[in-house]
């Protein structure tokens, strides 16, 4: 059951997460800033309201599962786990450093609270289908399995292999979220390899589809509440319309900020932009 947390509280968590993202990118030297900032609201809403997870007992069996299928956004995920108490806040300072538990992509054997190692795109949804099947077979009927994917990632064929299986097996506890930030490394998704109409595609694959503004906490909260309350015998797909780099004006909607490094001026500017957010 989702916790009773207000939209305003979630917004402030998302803001705090964005600050931790840019700080961690600074510790790391560089990072996947664009995609990390676009999904910050989603992660904040999941970890501070929706996911039934416990930092004191990260392996409890009847917990919800979360898979960061867009693994390159460990830059957002690990700070979020730190804010949720799974890993020490100060450990973020080692991000990307020699023998650190944290690199650009999360390692479930090293990151406490991380349910799956990811990085190669298109792997999250298949693992999520496996988890949902495994939980159902073991009579855990209340746990959700949430998979956060990128929009460029939708190009991977394995996403659709898994989507087909999710609907076939009527995995109603599976929630696939697409961070629709519209940009990938080589340019806009619709120029590199178009995925529109992505909502219709998931619908055709047998999902209940919810479209929301993934950078507007009110809209996102509503979408997640609806997904959590799903009673239909089908998996849920949330198409979260976002902006890449959201929160830092210089990064917003800019292809080159998929991955980058900030000098000290830019870092200060990024912090100021985030602090000025609502």
């Amino acid at each position: 059951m989702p916790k009773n947390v207000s939209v305003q509280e979630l917004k402030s968590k998302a803001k705090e997460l964005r600050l931790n993202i840019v700080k961690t990118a600074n510790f790391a030297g560089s990072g996947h800033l664009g995609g990390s900032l676009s999904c910050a609201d989603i992660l904040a809403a999941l970890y501070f309201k929706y996911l039934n997870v416990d930092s004191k007992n990260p392996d409890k069996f009847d917990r919800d599962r979360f898979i960061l299928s867009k693994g390159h956004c460990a830059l957002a995920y690990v700070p979020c786990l730190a804010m949720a108490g799974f890993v020490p806040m100060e450990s973020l300072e080692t991000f990307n450093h020699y023998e650190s538990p944290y690199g650009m992509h999360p390692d479930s054997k090293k990151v406490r609270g991380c349910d799956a190692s990811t990085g190669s795109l298109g792997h999250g949804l298949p693992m999520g289908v496996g988890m949902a099947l495994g939980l159902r077979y073991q009579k855990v009927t209340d746990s959700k399995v949430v998979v956060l994917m990128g929009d460029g990632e939708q190009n991977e064929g394995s996403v659709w292999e898994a989507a087909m299986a999710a609907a076939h097996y009527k995995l109603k506890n599976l929630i696939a979220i697409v961070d629709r930030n519209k940009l990938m490394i080589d340019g806009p998704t619709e120029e590199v390899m178009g995925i529109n109409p992505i909502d219709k595609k998931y619908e055709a694959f047998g999902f209940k589809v919810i479209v929301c503004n993934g950078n507007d906490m009110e809209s996102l909260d509503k979408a997640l509440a609806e997904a959590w309350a799903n009673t239909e015998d089908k998996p849920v797909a949330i198409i979260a319309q976002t902006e890449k780099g959201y929160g830092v004006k210089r990064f917003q909607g800019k292809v080159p900020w998929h991955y980058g490094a900030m000098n000290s001026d830019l870092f200060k500017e990024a912090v100021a932009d985030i602090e000025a957010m609502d």
Partner: protein
Amino acid sequence: MAEGTTWTTYDANKMASKEIYGKVLAELGEKNDKIVGVTADLAKSTNIGNFGDKFPERIFNVGIAEQNLFGVAAGLAKTGLIPFASTFAIFACLRGGEQVRTDIAYQNLPVKIIATHGGLSFGTAGTTHHCTEDYAIMRAIPNMTVVIPADGFETAKAVRACIDIPGPFYMRVGRGFEPPMHDNEDFEFTVGKAMTIHEGSDITIITCGTPTLQAREAAKDLEAEGISVRVINMHTLKPIDKDAIMQAVMDTRRILTVEEHNVIGGLGDAVAAVIAESGKGCAFTKLGINDEFSVIGYPEDLYARYKLDATGIAETVKELLGKEIEADEDWADED
């Protein structure tokens, strides 16, 4: 063959009376409810269907989608289950290979990959369905245990044994109608421990999988000609039994490896590395597919072509016996 059945289903059905994979798995499933099966539209062909017939709620057919097959298997394992994932060997090592490496092996999950139709065993299906690359791929993946049983009896033993191996496990078998090498299950089988199945002192054949029986037949034939051949069944490719290899080097100083695989990266290379690292010299030949795509044909014709039958193996043994090696009688005394 009954109308409408493929060679594959025909062969699997023919083997239904024998104790092979699907049957053993069904038997294990009764004792252990953590065991589940995953397949990609090959439940019948890979024999995992036997398990599925018995436990329909425990088998997940993902359709013709091998990437998803191994991703789903990883996810199932993440919930504490022991998934057996079955498909043809070529799809296991290449079509879903990255999922095997990253989802399963990197996370050190107890997924048991039972890859059927390995090597040349699906002969007439053609080169797309042959698989002579899997040993190289699977043994290069950290955490992976790699076993290639010689026949159905060893397969049965390996399936039982792999439950207790905590991490990922890859087993390659043929189509399931290869002649048995053992008469029954009354023999010791330990993962990682090679079996000497024929004693000899002139030369050692180290082999695994389907050619193992052929190597033993070759050794018997050669014995009649006065050539004493040791045959080692190296059913576990990884971790490889270094002691058995070094004992053979010390005792016979001539080693022939025989494998239903490219000579690059497989059993021969694994054995060669052990010998080279030991610093001991010996005459050595790798017999296998010589870095080419295998041709189409009945398996028995292919085994003959690539010298993986008893006749071809015996011929190669004789060639290797004629090979000069640098004499250094002292090395046997070295530590």
